[in-house]
């Protein structure tokens, strides 16, 4: 069983929603990434999405763009990102790591070589933002062959037919983009999100994670009530950016932020659970 599947099954048993944290590898400095990842896990994060920095992150808002620029200023390469996962695994063999990024750095390394190395270094899944399902046949097969989960995005604009097609090729979980926009945007409409999750659930038994626009305990707990996983990214990176020169403060604030989100989510899903039991 894959780490992602195991994690989601364990959480489901307890009636809890997964907390997924996104950070860009190499931000603010490559030497700090592994420490940040451990901090996220200590704060109660269940899954890590580790961003592969790219010079032209066209689906990302200003916060993650700056994170990419900081990481690239220190020359963070895909090879280094894979080594960070390896180093993380020396202490943590449980927490799933999904690499998230854009296709070009992967192509330059070579898809086959990348898949093989990702497996060796114990990466769990791949999400390539600019690789929609139509372009992904080769990647899906290659990643599958190396026991990597294929994570795809589903957007508010995705048709029901496409949702089915995407789900058929996904594993681990599917990632619902909560709004039309880039990462870090605001204006989350939970009613709309709930409706779309219901639509996705018709096509798959995979867990559905929701990301984009979740930045605090309040928005996280609202989404936790309707989704299997909540993804938080830009809010963490804001802390990294604000305290890039003060490691203790940076790690402390990340831990405080994610712990408070974890707590709010658990309260909300406990309420849900109780409501369900009462009903």
């Amino acid at each position, binding site marked *: 069983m894959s780490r992602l599947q195991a994690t989601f099954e364990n959480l489901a048993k307890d009636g809890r929603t997964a907390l997924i944290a996104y950070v860009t590898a190499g931000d603010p400095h490559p030497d700090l990434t592994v420490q940040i990842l451990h901090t996220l896990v200590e704060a109660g994060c269940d899954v890590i999405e580790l961003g592969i920095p*790219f*010079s*032209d*992150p*066209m*689906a*990302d*808002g*200003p916060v993650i*763009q700056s994170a990419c*620029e900081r990481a*690239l200023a220190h*020359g963070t*390469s*895909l*090879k280094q990102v894979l080594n960070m996962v390896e180093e993380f695994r020396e202490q943590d063999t449980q927490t799933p790591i999904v690499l998230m990024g*854009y*296709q*070009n*750095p*992967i*192509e*330059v*390394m070579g898809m086959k070589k990348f898949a093989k190395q990702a497996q060796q270094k114990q990466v769990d899944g791949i999400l390539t*933002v*600019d*690789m*929609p399902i*139509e*372009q992904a046949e080769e990647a899906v097969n290659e990643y599958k062959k190396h026991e990597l989960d294929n994570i*795809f*995005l*589903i*957007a*508010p*604009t*995705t*048709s029901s037919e*496409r949702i089915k097609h*995407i789900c058929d090729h996904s594993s681990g979980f599917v990632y619902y*983009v909560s709004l*039309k*926009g*880039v990462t870090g*945007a605001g204006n989350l409409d939970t009613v709309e999100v709930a409706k779309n999750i219901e639509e996705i659930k018709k096509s798959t038994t995979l867990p559905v994670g929701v990301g984009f626009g979740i930045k605090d305990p309040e928005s996280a707990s609202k989404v936790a009530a309707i989704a299997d996983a909540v993804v938080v990214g830009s809010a963490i990176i804001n802390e990294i950016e604000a305290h890039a020169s003060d490691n203790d403060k940076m790690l402390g604030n990340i831990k405080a932020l994610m712990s408070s989100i974890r707590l709010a989510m658990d309260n909300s899903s406990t309420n849900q659970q109780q409501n369900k039991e009462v009903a």
Partner: protein
Amino acid sequence: MTRIANNIDPTTADSRNSDVMPNAHGMFGEYGGRYVAETLIEPLAELEQAYSHYKDDPEFIAEFDTDLAHYVGRPSPLYHAQRLSQKYAGAQIYLKREDLNHTGAHKINNTIGQALLAKRMGKPRIIAETGAGQHGVASATVAARLGLECVVYMGEQDIHRQAPNVYRMKLLGAKVVPVTSGSKTLKDALNEALRDWVTNVDNTFYIIGTVAGPHPYPLLVRDFQSIIGREAREQMQQQTGSLPDALVACVGGGSNAIGLFHPFINDESVNMFGVEAGGYGLETGKHSAPLNSGRPGVLHGNRTYLMEDDNGQIIETHSISAGLDYPGVGPEHAWLKDIGRVQYDSVTDDEALAAFHELTRVEGIIPALESSHAIAYATKLASTMSSDKKILVNLSGRGDKDINTVAEIEGITI
């Protein structure tokens, strides 16, 4: 009435035949495609559907033709540059005068076409990216004429070097948004426009200015720009009795080049040359010539030749001309290079600057710095050919926008 696209039955045509490219997935061989975030897939499919309907719609075609004739001023002249030809004592040089179009460049052919699509698709807001500002001006122009809201993204560095065009866009009622991320040039403006589109996709039409981006943009921009080559082919035959021996055009994203080349693709006697920006010289690495020294990768929604480092990061490009300062190139050019139909070469900043002055002084035509690259290459090529041969050069735009840049380089304050 002219057809917008050349419709040839794909089942009987030769697979090297450009008329059947791209395929249903927007691929030109292994290039092109639709590498975008999921949110944009459906809007791109809608655009593709709308275009495939309207390109054969008599009313749409008639409106496009009328606008090109009475608003843009087409057909643009074909001009025999006799003094320039004599100077090089070689092939005869003919200029396709896209500089005489309304707004001063070939860009307007495409913005007219896309704006007509926007209108029919019921989108009240258009956005565009721009490098030299010519596409931004052409977008702001059609927006003013159709009463559409217009936002143009432009790299901060380009805003500085193309100041007259920034002011023109503002006069036309467009909002010009400076882009400060990355290298602050055209590629970053494209990223920012894509981010705007993904956010405002319900009411917004994104007018891409060149034959790059995700499918169907490389196709529809090519079709709208092919008017250049169709006219030139006819004019050449009328004026000289035969086809040219060679075509020359500058290549940034590649829209003026593909517009000229496409209608000649099946004319085997016609050699084609695409000229990239050699900047300080290919050997310095400071240039914008991905077809000459890059390699295939994925950027801005398509697979094509790119300028990148060993880790797959896009590198900063350099060119004296903002309109050529782009690390990618349209996917159809990548394919035409690989199959050997077009030869891609480069010209340095200094050579382009010399050609800028030469055409101005010898023919009384001030060319855009982008087009000056094509002129420089054509004069070199002409001197290797006999005087009964003919070279057709796309003079893609006029140089008024560049006089500040040129003056600055020469230490003159105007």
